[in-house]
């Protein structure tokens, strides 16, 4: 039986969807057709609001939800969320940084983005205080935010990471244990800042986690953003990066490993909105077991303001068993002819039997040979993080996935 492999490539035309101003505050999201308008096709024209009440109930047909098992995350879409997460969050710093909990009315909130879907808006409407991390130091500093005891209660979280001009730092969001969480993470880079943000999802098998990351990258600033999703029932992390100033640079990396029944999703959006900005997107995933499902959507928008843009995005998936499904959807909207480069690549495929033969011909047993190949495939991304301790821990975590996974493979074949 062949595995279903969905591979879609589409390049949207640069025309605007319609003349309606969807970003106007106070306007409500409309159902397609209800107002006699064409459906929204382009990413730049998507509705956005901070208030959950402005969003229609989620049907699962919407562009941002159509790949997601919405039935499994109803509490995050419909109910009010518990917005007090302070006591459940542990922050460790390895250098100078200002860390404090701030009120939702604080001016530092809403500096990087606006929710574009209901779960994100629900978290925004529900959170009581936000974790603020500010990095000023020009010597590298690393901050780790641990969340491990969130339990089954539907919760909201809000985090603001601010890298001041010419600061250098790394922020790791380390997630484990149970969770039913929707959260927003705002990331602001001032001029010349170098910031790495890593979000690691090692949740329990039954956890649900929806995250929207909004980043705004200042002049000549560099953001490296890494999403590592290994554990959880439904995990969706959507990083959205606005390159608002000249010379802004973003690298978005992701690595994921989906087992039986797991849904791991990431919708990446890079908005080139200033001259000479650069973006690189590279996500790699492995899937094994019945019902393992991964989704990668990569939207890149190059606005008329973004002459000299240099952009490339790619996604690679390795399907290790039958019954797994990888959706990979790159979209490129280019609104100026004056760019340095824009490209995308996507490939999803099965295990290379020749690699297996080569390793086995050296005495290495089949299961170990598979592990070697998959580890190699995924470690290319892990090696980009730039934090040796975290890298080695994640390599071990991937290793554990592979060992655990080979058991479930056997079960699947039995």
């Amino acid at each position, binding site marked *: 039986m062949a595995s279903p492999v969905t591979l879609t490539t589409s390049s949207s035309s640069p025309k605007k969807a319609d003349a309606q101003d969807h970003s106007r505050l106070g306007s409500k999201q409309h159902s397609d057709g209800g107002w006699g308008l064409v459906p929204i096709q382009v990413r730049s024209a998507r509705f956005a609001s901070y208030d959950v009440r402005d969003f229609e109930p989620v049907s699962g047909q919407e562009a941002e939800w159509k790949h997601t098992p919405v039935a499994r995350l109803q509490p995050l879409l419909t109910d009010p969320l518990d917005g007090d997460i302070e006591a459940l969050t542990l922050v460790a710093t390895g250098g100078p940084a200002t860390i404090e909990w701030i009120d939702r009315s604080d001016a530092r909130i809403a500096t990087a983005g606006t929710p574009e879907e209901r779960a994100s808006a629900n978290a925004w409407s529900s959170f009581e205080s936000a974790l603020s991390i500010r990095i000023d130091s020009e010597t590298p500093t690393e901050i780790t935010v641990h969340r491990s005891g969130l339990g089954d209660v539907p919760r909201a979280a809000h985090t603001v990471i601010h890298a001041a001009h010419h600061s250098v730092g790394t922020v790791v969001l380390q997630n484990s244990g149970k969770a039913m969480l929707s959260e927003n993470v705002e990331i602001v880079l001032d001029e010349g800042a170098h910031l790495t943000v890593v979000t690691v999802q090692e949740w329990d098998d039954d956890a649900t986690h929806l995250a929207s990351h909004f980043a705004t990258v200042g002049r000549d600033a560099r953001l490296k953003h890494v999403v590592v999703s290994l554990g959880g029932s439904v995990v969706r992390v959507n990083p959205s990066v606005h390159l608002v100033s000249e010379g802004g640079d973003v690298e978005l990396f992701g690595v994921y490993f989906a087992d039986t029944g797991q849904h791991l999703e990431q919708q990446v959006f890079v908005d080139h909105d200033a001259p000479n900005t650069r973006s690189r997107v590279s996500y790699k995933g492995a899937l094994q077991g019945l019902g393992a499902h991964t989704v990668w959507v990569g939207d890149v928008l190059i606005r008329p303001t973004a002459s000299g843009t240099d952009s490339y995005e790619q996604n690679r998936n390795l399907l290790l068993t039958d019954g797994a499904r990888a959706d990979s959807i790159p979209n490129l909207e280019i609104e100026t002819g004056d760019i340095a480069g824009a490209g995308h690549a996507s490939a999803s495929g099965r295990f*290379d*039997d*020749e*690699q297996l*033969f*080569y*390793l*086995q*011909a*050296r*005495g*290495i*047993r*089949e299961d*170990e*040979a598979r592990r*070697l*190949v998959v*580890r*190699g*495939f*995924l*470690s*290319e991304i892990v090696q980009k993080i730039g934090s040796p301790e975290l890298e080695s821990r994640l390599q071990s975590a991937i290793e554990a996935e592979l060992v655990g996974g080979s058991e479930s493979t056997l079960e699947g074949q039995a």
Partner: protein
Amino acid sequence: MSVLTVSDLHVSVETEQGTKQILKGVDLVVKQGEIHAIMGPNGSGKSTLAYTIAGHPKYHVESGSVTLDGEDLLAMSVDARARAGLFLAMQYPVEIPGVAVTNFLRTAKTAIDGVQPSIRTWTKEVTESMKNLRMDASFKDRNVNEGFSGGEKKRHEILQLELLKPKFAILDETDSGLDVDALKIVAEGVNRAKQNTGLGLLLITHYTRILRYITPDFVHVFVDGRVAEEGGPELADRLEAEGYDRFIAPAGLPTEA
């Protein structure tokens, strides 16, 4: 003394045109310490023999047997055959991204021996073998076969041969694509391995060139899926002078009923 025995081996592959018979009854006995050269024109089934013995899933054994000291190799998985003492140096080794040579070698050595090699002696052994094969020290940090030149790939194969110490090694056109300097280095490596471990060798080649540096005890000429002629090293000299023409049926006459 170990013996690798191939008896009346018939092998087919699936092609777009249907099942194709490649080996049509091959008999071969290789004893430890012997060097056998398998020569023949393209398409005669030389590589098929190599990959069938190693257990590549593409090749279907229709009948016949391959045994190592009486053990049925064909009943074993690819990795079990390697652990039983078989090694195949491949003509086109595949790239394995993200897997460093050093990690690969250690994993293979551990698999073959059943125990992890002692760190100190192993590192020394790897360093020494690499030096002998004129491989730069940085080589071990590169990913397996990734971005290797043709010569580097072949040296890497021989490095494994030296380190894994098999009872029998099949070298599938290890000489092809090598310049004369690289060929000498590779041949030295093979001779060194034989000297150190006394392994038996099955040297598959289209050309006689490598036989100037590795002297065979026996030469077998493969034509159309079987051994057409056998002899000592003098047969290689004759092939060098005459080529394969006399083994190939005149055009229009099918060689097989």
